Every structure is written in structure tokens, then in C-alpha cells.
């Protein structure tokens, strides 16, 4: 085929605005890093990132009100209800995460991020740097690139582009995981683990794409759907393709049996980065998962539902049970995030409109609650950095009633107690699942919920019912950055617990994929 015959793809740029703005802001961040004097860099970076995300959010709102939902860029990208809902969520969560990264009052060195990651942990230079106030600001453009990838991920209507988005969001995260200022060995180990396992998962994903291409002759989700509707294709390719693709996606959401990285990475990464991963990555990855399974495999649900049933049950059970044995707050939250992945999967498996809107709602509420929880975890510190061992949290309510009360409320939301957003979200997914005929999953879900409630209650018990240790950690007073992230998360958790109607309506309206 002569090259001059390839038509240039026609691209409507307006619907891509949110992604363009965030990628643009990320690139601008790189330039800031190069040209702005060191003293001003941090402020510039924060401003660029926050303004970028805020204007991306405005663009999302504009598109939601004015744009028609459609496939663009040769149907590689779908700008529709779920895309915009998740992109809006990601922008807001992203702003919260950037605020957490910007916090420098908590650590005497200024910020959670190591200033010179290339120094050998524990070496003389490293120790000297650990307490200096030099800060490193590359983390902001990295975070923005990751967020840009996350915005793109749920919008991909084409498996190859989805792979690109997956890598764009993952690579910066691998790096960021290794940048903790304290406990650097743990952090680097986490980064390496995350990278290796993530690379494996990506390879599986790519192999799945190849198999599906072999099956349908296209990597376009719509074409794959069309192929499943006609006969004469090899089912083996389809089933293997679905399975491989699922491995890649389930790894990102942290579902069993691809969950092994979660606790180590959550514990090792700098806490603001953990917050970003826990809140945003999960939202983006579930967005992609929903699109793949609802759009491309919507009619072959009888093939993949049994597999997803097993994954969901294992994820809920294992996440809940292993969380009980944890003695570290961050590891406990990691296992709890695995259990929540299971709950969200229950909504995915419903495969009906209610399931989709319930999953979208769950992702938003979970994102905000988790973001605020990790922000609170970052406040409890002793001389060596964050005090994440559970025993150190004993009697926290006495030292800081406000922090303990906030964290208690967030834990109750994670446990799904009524009058919090977590309850409404859980209720919505369970209801959708039961309407979709998955009563067994709901029963497993409620039992797993009871188990998760046990370890959340145990943390509350520690904070309130016990006497603080004499040499226990202190609760650092955060700057306005962290405070506003916590306030945002808390406000969303309260508001959606008491009056979720507007957001449920929004999720319901958004719950329609373009095909």
C-alpha cells in the first residue's frame, strides 16, 4: 500500500480537552523543572499541577453539559458518560493528591519525597540529605503524567491505545513508589516489586490484545463485540484473550490472585504517592475494566462471569481475612483496598445499567474516603517518620481528638456503616448484583463486610479505648494543603452518606457506554 494513500485521521480535539490539558500541564511541569530557579520551582509546580487539573475538571463539566457522547479519533477514544464521570472524579482526586505531595510541614526535611533518589540508602550523602531541607520537584510532572494516563485509560475504546495508557499511568508510578524520604530501602524494594510484577501484568495484557486481534481481526472494542455476535470465530482465542486481558486489568485494581504487590507497595511508597495510587489508580483501572467487559465482551458475559465470580469471591474473602492479621496501618488499608476491589467487582459482575452506575458511584466515594484516610495516616509520626505500626496508634484520641474522630468516621465509611457514603455505595452495588441474579455474591459480600468491620473497629478500639504509650508518636499539625484534602474527603463522605441522590442521578445518567 503506497504511503500517500493513508488518510490522516480526523480528530475532534474539544472532547479530548481534559486529557490534553493534563498532559500539557505535565509537559509544562518538565519545562518548569528546567527553566525556573530552584527557589521558585516548588510553587510553580504546584500551581501548574493544580491549575491544570482544575481546568481539566472545568473542561469535563463543559463536555458533560455540551458535548455529545461519541467515539472520536477513529473510534480509538470514547468520550461518554462513564469516561466523563471518571475523568471528573480523577481530576478532583488528583488535586487532593497533589495537595498531599505539596505538604512539607509534616517532615522536618520538608516533604515526603527524597531529594536525591540516586544516593545509596544509608550512605553518608543520603543521611546528610535526609535532614536537609532540599526538596525535589520532579514528582509533580511525574504525578501529572500518571494522572494524564489515568484520564485516558477509561476512555480507550481501542485495546492498543489502552495498553499505551496503561504504560503511561504505570511508569511514573513505579518511579514515584521508590521516592520515600524515610525508610528508603523499603521504598525501593516496593518500587522494584511493583515494576517487575507490573511489567508481567502488562505483558499478559499485551498478549491478550494479540489473541483478541487474532480472534476479531481488530483491536477496536466495537469490532470485538461485533465479532462475538457472529459465528465462525475461534472461541479459544476469545476466551484466552479475555483471560489475559483480565490479568492485566485485575492486577491494576489489585484483585486476588494478582494482589500480592498491594501491601508492600502501599507500605513502602511515600504516603502521598500511596494515596494517589489507592484512590486514582483504582478509579482509572476499574474504568478500563468496565469498558472492556461491558462494551467488548458485553454479549459474551456467560463466558467470563464465572471467572469474575471466582475472582470477586476470592478478593473479598482474602482481602478481608488477611487484613485482620495486619499490624501496620498502611498494610491494613492495603488489604482493605483489596477487599473493596472485591466489592466493586460485585457491581461489575451485575452487568446491567444499575451495576454500572453503582460501580461508578462506589469508585467516587471510595476514592475520596481513601484519599482522606491516607492523608490522616501521614499525620501520625514519631522521630523516624510516620508511625504506622498499629500499637503506636493506641490512645490517639487522647492526643488528638480531632484526628481520631476524623479517622474513625473514615473507617466507619470504609466499613460501610449507614449515614456514610461507604454504606450507600455498598448498598448500591449489592442491590445491582442481586438484580443481576448474583445473590450468592451478595451473601459472600455481606459476610466479608462483617469481617472488614472487625479490623476497622479494632483501630477505633485502639484509638479510643486504650491509654497512649509514654513514648508514642505525635500528631503533626498539617498545613492548609493536607487539611483541605482531608476536609474534601470528609465532606464528600458525609454528604454522600446523608444525601446521595444528586450523585446517584449523575452516575445513573452517566451509565451508558457508547459503542
Amino acid at each position, binding site marked *: 500500500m503506497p504511503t500517500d494513500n493513508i488518510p490522516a485521521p480526523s480528530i475532534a480535539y474539544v472532547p479530548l480537552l481534559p486529557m490534553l490539558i493534563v498532559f500539557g500541564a505535565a509537559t509544562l511541569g518538565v519545562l518548569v523543572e528546567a527553566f525556573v530557579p530552584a527557589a521558585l520551582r516548588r510553587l510553580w509546580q504546584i500551581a501548574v499541577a493544580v491549575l491544570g487539573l482544575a481546568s481539566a475538571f472545568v473542561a469535563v463539566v463543559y463536555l458533560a453539559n455540551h458535548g455529545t457522547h461519541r467515539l472520536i479519533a477513529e473510534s480509538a477514544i470514547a468520550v461518554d458518560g462513564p469516561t466523563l464521570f471518571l475523568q471528573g472524579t480523577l481530576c478532583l482526586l488528583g488535586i487532593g493528591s497533589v495537595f498531599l505531595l505539596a505538604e512539607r510541614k509534616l517532615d522536618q526535611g520538608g516533604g515526603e519525597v527524597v531529594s536525591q533518589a540516586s544516593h545509596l540508602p544509608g550512605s553518608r550523602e543520603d543521611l546528610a540529605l535526609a535532614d536537609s531541607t532540599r526538596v525535589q520537584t520532579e514528582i509533580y510532572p511525574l504525578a501529572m503524567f500518571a494522572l494524564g494516563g489515568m484520564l485516558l485509560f477509561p476512555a480507550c475504546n481501542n485495546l492498543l491505545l489502552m495498553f499505551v495508557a496503561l504504560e503511561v499511568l504505570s511508569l511514573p508510578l513505579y518511579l514515584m513508589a521508590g521516592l520515600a524520604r524515610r525508610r528508603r530501602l523499603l521504598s525501593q524494594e516496593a518500587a522494584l516489586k511493583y515494576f517487575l510484577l507490573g511489567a508481567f501484568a502488562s505483558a499478559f495484557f499485551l498478549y491478550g490484545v494479540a489473541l483478541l486481534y487474532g480472534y476479531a481481526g481488530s483491536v477496536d472494542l466495537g469490532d470485538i463485540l461485533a465479532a462475538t455476535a457472529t459465528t465462525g470465530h475461534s472461541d479459544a482465542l476469545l476466551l484466552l484473550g479475555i483471560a489475559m486481558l483480565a490479568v492485566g486489568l485485575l492486577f491494576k485494581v489489585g484483585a486476588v490472585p494478582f494482589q500480592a504487590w498491594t501491601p508492600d507497595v502501599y507500605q513502602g511508597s511515600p504516603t502521598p504517592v500511596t494515596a494517589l495510587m489507592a484512590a486514582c489508580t483504582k478509579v482509572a483501572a476499574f474504568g478500563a475494566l468496565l469498558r472492556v467487559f461491558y462494551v467488548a465482551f458485553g454479549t459474551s458475559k456467560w463466558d467470563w462471569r464465572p471467572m469474575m465470580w471466582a475472582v470477586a469471591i476470592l478478593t473479598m474473602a482474602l482481602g478481608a481475612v488477611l487484613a485482620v492479621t495486619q499490624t501496620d496501618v498502611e498494610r491494613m488499608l492495603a488489604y482493605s483496598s483489596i477487599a473493596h476491589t472485591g466489592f466493586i467487582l460485585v457491581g461489575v459482575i451485575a452487568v446491567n445499567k444499575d451495576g454500572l*452506575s453503582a460501580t461508578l458511584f462506589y469508585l467516587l466515594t471510595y476514592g475520596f474516603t481513601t484519599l482522606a484516610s491516607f492523608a490522616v495516616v501521614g499525620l501520625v509520626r514519631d522521630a523516624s517518620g510516620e508511625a504506622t505500626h498499629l500499637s503506636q496508634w493506641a*490512645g490517639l*484520641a*487522647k492526643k488528638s481528638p480531632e484526628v481520631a474522630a476524623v479517622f474513625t468516621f473514615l473507617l*466507619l465509611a470504609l466499613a460501610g*456503616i*449507614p*449515614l456514610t457514603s461507604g*454504606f*450507600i455505595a455498598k*448498598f*448500591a452495588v*449489592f*442491590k445491582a448484583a*442481586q*438484580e443481576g441474579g448474583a*445473590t450468592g455474591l*451478595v*451473601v459472600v*459480600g*455481606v*459476610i466479608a*463486610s*462483617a469481617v472488614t*468491620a*472487625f479490623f476497622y*473497629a*479494632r483501630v*477505633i*478500639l485502639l484509638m*479510643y*479505648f*486504650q*491509654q497512649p504509650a509514654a513514648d508514642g508518636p505525635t500528631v503533626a499539625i498539617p498545613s492548609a494543603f493536607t487539611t483541605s484534602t482531608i476536609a474534601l474527603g470528609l465532606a464528600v463522605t458525609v454528604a454522600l452518606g446523608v*444525601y*446521595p*441522590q444528586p450523585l*446517584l*442521578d449523575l452516575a*445513573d445518567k452517566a451509565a451508558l457506554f457508547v459503542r
Partner: protein
Amino acid sequence: MTTTPWMTILLVVPAVGALLVSLLPKGSDLLAKQLALGVSLLTLVLTAVACVQFDIGPGAQRFQFAQHHDWISALGVTYSVGADGIALVLIALAALLVPLVLLASWDTVEGLLDVEGPDARLTPQKSVKTFFALMLVLESFMIGVFAATDVFLFYVFFEAMLIPMYFLIGMYGGPRRSYAAVKFLLYSLVGGLLMLAAVIGLYVQSGKRTFRFDELLNLNLSHSAQMWLFLGFFIAFAIKAPLFPFHTWLPDAGAEAPTGGAVLLVGVLDKVGTFGFLRYCLPLFPWAAHKAAPYVITLSVIGVIYGALLAMGQKDLKRLVSYTSVAHFGFIGMGCLAFTTQAGTGAVFYMVNHGLSTGALFLVIGFLIDRGKSRLVTDYSGIAKVAPVLAAMFFISGLSSLALPGLSTFVSEFLVLVGTFTRYKVAASIATTGIVLAAIYILLAYQRTMQGALSTAHENMKDLKPREVAAVAPLLVLMLVLGFYPKPVTDIINPAVKATMQDTQSTDPAPTDALPQRVSTGN
């Protein structure tokens, strides 16, 4: 008929009170107590007004003061509240007990037992303000759980109620409070979450896209669906009530909770279980309820005997009272599932009377423990010599607990037994022995602690203060008054029980002899 939204008012007043109390500046403990007491008294007065306005005439609506507003229409959830007679008397019970326990807890929040135990050395400083605020929050949720006429709303209150109680036990409880608090929370949550599955199942099976109770009545559910949904609700309520064999959390929670918390826990919170039988299990799943009744009644009878036997063997006074409650809840459970108007009315009246008598018993024992700094029966003897008022109050509440004629508990126990006898003769006969056992455990406990030689350690024990008398006296007066003249209360209860029986498509069996007819149920 008035349109005053009494239920919402009763819900909101304590909630606002709790907010105000929690907003008071540090150190204003006395003001917090006064404000909390004032709010709870206001709630009591408002409840009384609502009771007076409640229409019990023929042709009166079943749910009065009803309100329906959309809340989460995406999920089919409404804010629907209203009261039938059963709910109203239980709301009144809650509104009555809260000011009394606040009064009883006036000085004892800080100075609790420092008995040796795993948590004794970890005792955190107790915040008086938080205690009183939690009590008011609890009151609001308790009223809400009875007033809700939307299954979802009911569930919300059912679960939300656990949180303040968890903190009351965990922060202000006895030496093993952490264990008791977690056990209480977990048992209740497991039951509650199973109920959540059933609530969703009911919504899906009904196909009506609503959680409103009045629209969920008379559904044509398949038998297997009824059975599963009934089980989901039943287990939650059986744990809450608690019915044998789901009762094991109660002695721990009852013993470790602070006195005020224990009174509300056993007096009101547990009633949500038996209230749930009558309000939800029976009318929504009549076929399953009829099928399950023999089994539930068997469990209830076992509970009556087993609870009484264990109560006899207890060394710990608060555990003793907790086990007597297991026995009493056996009677109530039996009355709920007997499917006769008499037994149903008796069961509801029993719920009220049990709240009064066990509430009084817990309060008096709490006062005794505050003075003697021990919960063990063997640490006391001859207390009547130094504290005659305390002993007398102990005696009267004890007699009420064993259902002495002339006290209100007798009326309800008799109604339950007679009403059950018309259908389940063997069960009712066996349960009757529970009365004898009750006499043994109460009188033994009284004899061991109050009579005999006074030990030297207690020579200086002070009798009840006027404040403490004021906390218990209203309960004793009510027991006596309702014992001789139960009509005002049974008149409110009776139409609601009849309506419930109609929902379950059951008619009272024709009396086989003259005995049951002699007992007036006040209609």
C-alpha cells in the same frame, strides 16, 4: 387526627441536643449534664403529648403521625416515619429511660470500677461531655428505629445505633470493655449485614422498586423466597433480641457496659429484635413465619429455662441480670410467634415491662456496685441494714422481674403464657417453670446480698441519694400502676397487634375452655 410530624420531632430533638452538648467548650461538664437532661426531658414531654394525641378509637389509622418524603429515589428509598401502637409504646419506653439513666449516671461517668482486668490499667480519661452526647445520639437513633416505616430507613437506624453503643461500652465500660464492645459490635453487624442482604432481596423480589413498608405488605412471594428472606431478617433480630442460641454476646456487653448503657442496651436496644419479629418477620413473610414458629418457640422455651438456670449460677450481679433478660426474651419471643392476639399483646406489653423492671434492676445494682466497688454477689451481705432504701428498691424490681401478681410484668407474662397455651400447650407449660426459676434466682440474689450479717467492709455504705431515688422511683411507680391498671397501654398496643395478625392471615383459635377468655386484653 393531627398532622403534627411527631416522629420527626422526636428524632430531631435529641440529635440537636447531642450536637449542642458536643459543641460545649471543654470543662463545662455540669452544663453538659444539665443540657442533656433538659433535652431528654423535653423529648419525654413531647413523647407524652404524642401518646395523648395517638388515636386509639375504632377506625383509627394503623400508622399515625405518618410522613413520606423521597430521600434517595434512585434506590427507591423514602424517608417514611410513623407509629403504630407497638412502635409508640417502645418509643415512649426509650424516651422514659433516657432521662432516668442520665440522672443515674450523673456522678459515675468518671469514677467507674477499677477492678483488675486486662483493660484496667489502660483506663483512659473519661469525657463526661462525650458520654452525655452519645446517650442523646443513641436516643435519637432508638426513636428512629421504631419510627421508621421504610425498610431501608429502619436498617439505617438499626446499624447506626450500634456505633454510639460501641463507644459507650468501649470507653466507659468495666474491666473487659474492649472485648465486650467488639463482641457486641461484631455479633450485631453480622446479623445486620445478613439482614441487609435480605432487605435487598426483598426489594428485588417484590419488584415494586420501593422500600416502603406499607407497599411491601401482601406480596405474593414464592415460598422459598419467603423462607430465605425470613431467615435473613430473623437471624438479625434473634441476635439482637437475643434469642437462644444467639445470646452469648449479651452477658458480656451487659456486664461490661456502664450502668446507663446497660439499661438502654437491654431495656431498649434489644427490643428492636422482638419488635422486628412483629413488624417485619411476621407481616412480610407470613408463610415462612408460620412454618418457622414451632422452631422459634422451641428456641424461646429453651431460652427461658437456660437463661434462668445460668442466671442462678452467676457470681457477677450484672451478668446475672443479663441472663435473666435472656430468659425474659424467651417469653417475648414466644409471644411474638404464637400468632394469637393475646400472646402478641402480651409480648409487646412484656417488652415495655421488661424495660421498666430490668432497667430498675440494672440501675439499683449499678448504685450498689458504685458503692461496694465489686460486681460479685459474694462480696456483699446484709446491705439492707445500712442501705434500706436501696434494698427495698432492689426487692421491688426483683419481684417485678419474677412477675409477681400486682406488678405489671405479671400481666404481660400471663398474657403471653395464656395466649401461647391456646396453640402450643406443651411449650407454654414448660415455659411456666421459668417463673419458678425466676423466683429462685432473684430471691437468692436478694438474700445473699441484702440479708444476713453485714460485713465490716460495708459498714459505712451510704444509702441512695435523692437523685438516685429519683432515677428509679418512676420505674417502680409505673410497674405498680400498670400492674393494676394496664388498660391505657394495652389499648394502644392491641389494635396494632391485631393488624399484624391480620397481615399474617391468622385468626385466634377458638378457646377450648373458659380460662383464656377471662383475661381481658383491654379491647
